């Protein structure tokens, strides 16, 4: 077998990497903000029968229960029919944000509920309001618990961002996968290009994983969760 790699592909693939990274970082950041809000509503939003709880639940079930691809096409092709024009990048970012927020909401809910109930009680007992207790006592602990599932989600979204290649037609709006496909269709070097792209994704995932592990160690509470080796 004769594999041919052309260094001329690299600048374009580099652009694709940059776009993929932007999509991932933005959607994860915005998704975390929205997800945290939804998770808080699910825990503290006044119980099962409050309108807020109900809205958050419907949102979460809808965006977790339908394919990301459908959501993306719905936004990209559907919004213009009601007069809202969105480009491929914005449509991709919006779909990914709305989707990951639904998943992250559940991670936040789980993390918040894992904080012992005595923590809230002790905070209220010194006279903190519920909002203060959530902000200064519950969330700092919940955010530490959320790092492992969150890094999982980050990796998923990094790879799922390749679906924006469904809507991107021009080179400057193409993510890594879309760029690769357009290079390959021109020179028929599918195998080589996709091997290269797989390695690029792998490298990005490894870098993010290491970075998050570092963050996790940095914010670890001394004396808690010390790894027990060899047991």
């Amino acid at each position: 077998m004769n594999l041919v790699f052309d260094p001329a592909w690299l600048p374009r693939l580099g652009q694709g990497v940059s776009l993929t990274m932007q999509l991932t970082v933005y959607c994860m950041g915005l998704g975390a903000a929205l997800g945290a809000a939804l998770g808080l509503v699910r825990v503290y939003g006044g119980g099962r029968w409050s309108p807020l709880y109900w809205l958050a639940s419907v949102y979460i079930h809808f965006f977790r229960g339908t394919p990301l691809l459908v959501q993306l096409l719905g936004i990209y092709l559907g919004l213009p029919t009601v007069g809202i024009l969105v480009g491929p990048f914005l449509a991709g970012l919006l779909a990914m944000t709305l989707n990951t927020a639904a998943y992250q909401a559940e991670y936040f809910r789980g993390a918040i509920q894992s904080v012992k109930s005595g923590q809230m009680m002790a905070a209220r007992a010194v006279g903190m309001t519920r909002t203060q207790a959530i902000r200064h006592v519950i969330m700092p602990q919940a955010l530490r618990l959320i790092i492992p599932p969150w890094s999982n989600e980050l990796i998923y979204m990094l790879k799922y961002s390749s679906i924006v290649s469904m809507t991107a037609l021009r080179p400057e709006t193409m993510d890594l996968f879309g760029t690769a496909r357009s290079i390959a269709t021109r020179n028929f070097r599918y195998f080589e290009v996709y091997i290269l792209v797989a390695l690029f994704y792998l490298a990005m995932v490894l870098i993010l994983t290491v970075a998050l592990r570092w963050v996790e160690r940095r914010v670890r509470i001394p004396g808690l969760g010390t790894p027990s080796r060899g047991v």
Partner: protein
Amino acid sequence: MALLRVEDLHKRYGHEEVLKGVTLAQDAGETKVVIGPSGTGKSTLLRCINRLTEPDRGRVWLEDTEITSRQTDINRVRAKIGFVFQDFNLFTHLTALDNVRLGLVRVRRMPRAAATGRAMAELERVGLAAKADAYPAQLSGGQQQRVSIARALAMDPRLILFDEPTSALDPELIGEVLSVMIQLARDGMTMIVVTHEMGFARSVADEIVFMEGGVIVEQGPPDKMFRSPEVPRTGEFLRKISELYGESQ
């Protein structure tokens, strides 16, 4: 006028009525020890006093503020009532110093430097100034409970409620917590203590309250309660508990 008045407090969980009308009064500087078999509403009583648990019926006053009134800002009241939990409930993500300082900064809005000074002074008082930078998970149970007492003290409480403060501790760690509490009682702190430590009750309580089945069966000064209780059941319980827990202090 009494510092704290509790009037006809009722609390029901499902079908079980845990408090069936509890009335008591507590003067400033007084130490009351509440004893009784488990499940008789002692902890519920403490939690209803600062409304960590919402009572179904009855009233509670701290001086002339009715705690149970809807118009009362409960957070302001709670800031004046210290609460020490059986399992400490220190904020796990904060150092000992930050645990004590958090309420000063966030609730009392004290400037950071002043709050730090005050928090250090309280840690000093419970003998843990050297552990200011330690996290709860790095402290023994006894040390954690002393930090939680410092956390309560820092708020300048009018009253501190202790909910079985030594029940979660290994026997050899009980003494260090009790000696802090004894010192507090001698310094004139107003305290209500739910405990099985009869030695503590005998040596510092101004009054012992015996609860059973959601009501106060009998209350009185320790001498009388131990020597000549009016209700036979009180004497029986006191004898049993003294055998079980000894009189370590």
